[in-house]
């Protein structure tokens, strides 16, 4: 967990842990922190070395070697436990799978029907699926601990954020797979996928200031209005002509979407601890 990277085990507590005098609860807390903190692992090695006599220098070196060997395993354990925590939310898992299924069905139907309206409907709705996935993660019901979660060290800050990213990515990947099977042309695929990425990243970034649910509703309304306005100007829509018109410079539009996503990711990183409670109220 990255939430514990700024706090370090106090020296006296680390000393009790090293000497075996820590209470059971302190042991649990220290071990939870050591998994994620190389600095405290090093301090522990020093504390242990200072307690031993005789070949203490070699013990300290040995601790450092073991620490270095264990580091990749610790990272793996952290990643595994983070993913386990993300998945430990049955309501969110259900909502994400539901959204992914809706996206699969939508792409399937629109490919089979092949009507003039298929493209605008796909462009209007498909990018909103990952946005909805992200919003679900910020709902209070998404955490099994409900209203208790915001006061805990792990769930209060970055866990909802991490869950939002996982839900969005799962939905995007499902859409990507459906588009590949359908098959959709690369232009059409990018036309819904990249705006979906940009919209989701924008909700996550601006969600550090505003209520993510309200924000998503405003952005989704704006996006649908944009597609409807484009469609009403070009009915019926021959696909290639429409694509060319929708983005006079498709490359620029793609780059703009990617740039928005990157900037939003940077904002998310910088403001990851800005709110005391990430959940929609």
């Amino acid at each position, binding site marked *: 967990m990255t939430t514990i990277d700024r706090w370090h085990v106090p020296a006296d507590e680390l000393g009790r842990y090293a000497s075996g005098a820590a209470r059971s*609860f302190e042991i649990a807390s220290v071990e939870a922190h050591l998994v994620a903190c190389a600095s405290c692992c090093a301090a522990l090695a020093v504390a242990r070395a200072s307690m031993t006599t005789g070949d203490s220098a070699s013990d300290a070196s040995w601790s450092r070697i073991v620490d270095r060997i264990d580091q990749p395993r610790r990272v793996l354990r952290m990643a595994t436990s983070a993913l386990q925590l993300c998945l*430990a939310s049955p309501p969110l898992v259900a909502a994400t799978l539901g959204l992914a299924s809706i996206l699969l069905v939508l792409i399937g139907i629109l490919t089979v029907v092949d009507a003039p309206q298929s493209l605008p409907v796909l462009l209007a709705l498909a990018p909103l699926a990952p946005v909805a996935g992200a919003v679900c993660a910020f709902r*209070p019901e998404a955490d*099994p601990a409900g209203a*208790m979660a915001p*006061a805990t060290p*792990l769930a*209060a*800050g970055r866990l909802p954020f991490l869950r939002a990213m996982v839900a969005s990515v799962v939905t995007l990947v499902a859409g990507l797979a459906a588009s590949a099977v359908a098959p959709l042309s690369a232009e059409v695929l990018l036309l819904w996928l990249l705006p979906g990425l940009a919209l989701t990243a924008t909700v996550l970034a601006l969600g550090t200031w505003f209520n993510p649910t309200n924000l998503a509703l405003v952005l989704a309304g704006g996006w649908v209005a944009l597609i409807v306005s484009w469609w009403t100007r070009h009915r019926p829509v021959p696909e290639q002509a429409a694509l060319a018109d929708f983005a006079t410079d498709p490359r620029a539009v793609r780059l703009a979407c990617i740039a928005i996503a990157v900037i939003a990711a940077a904002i998310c990183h910088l403001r990851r601890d800005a709110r005391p409670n990430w959940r929609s109220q």
Partner: protein
Amino acid sequence: MNHDLELSGVEKRFGGTTAVDSIDWTGGGGVIGLLGANGAGKTTLLKMLATVLVPDSGNLRLLGHDPARADQRLAIRRQLGYLPQQAGLYRGFTAFDLVDYVAVLKEISHRSTRRDEVRRVLHDVGLEADMHRRIRTLSGGMQRRVALAAALLGRPALLVLDEPAAGLDPDQRLRLRTVLSHAGTASTVFLSTHHTEEVAAFCRQVLVLDRGRLVFDGTPSLLAATASGRVWVDDQPHPAALRSWLTSHGEVRSIGTPPSGAQLVEPTLDDGYLLLTSEIGTPS
């Protein structure tokens, strides 16, 4: 004096409504009760003490840390147990799994230590026999106890409990008093309640909130004493009484300025609380 909780000019507004209005108070240690009518601002104040909400203005320090700063907020949460008014627990988990999950969120990562701790808190709230039942099959009072057990995990230095006795039967309330009194020997337990008898039973200190303002800070006996000489019984309500109610003995108990010759009685905590809030609501 214990300074676990330090509030200086703390305010919280929602739109045009001031939920908590410029509270100054410092204290901690033992069990502290917060009394107030519905809408008095108790839940908002408790959410701020639980780091879920930040004040709009004023300074708040919990366990020596500033909850407005991310790193210090985390330090507080590592020593905090919080029971919200509506916990909203996921009903598909068993009681054990739910409390175990909260233990993970509280960074108790060592599996066997965590499970021992989960069993301990479930035992403390009297749910050891029902720990493997799903939340949805438990009664409202039992669900409340599951949430309380989760709040007790890790013997937190600060316990913030929003109406912990709500939905509990008399037996369970007695057990709750024992658990919280025990917790109060080593921690600060800050709880809100509508029940003055809870406060009288085990709170060392009582605060009264009225429309967001702190209007009383003292011991339960001091709150009861504020009504000394101002409670009487009669066979009918007196027009000068601030409040009158029929008791189970068939007599009318009144608070306010007693008429001459009134039969004065010993005030209770209820009398003190009702007198205090009635006088604030009465234009002078």
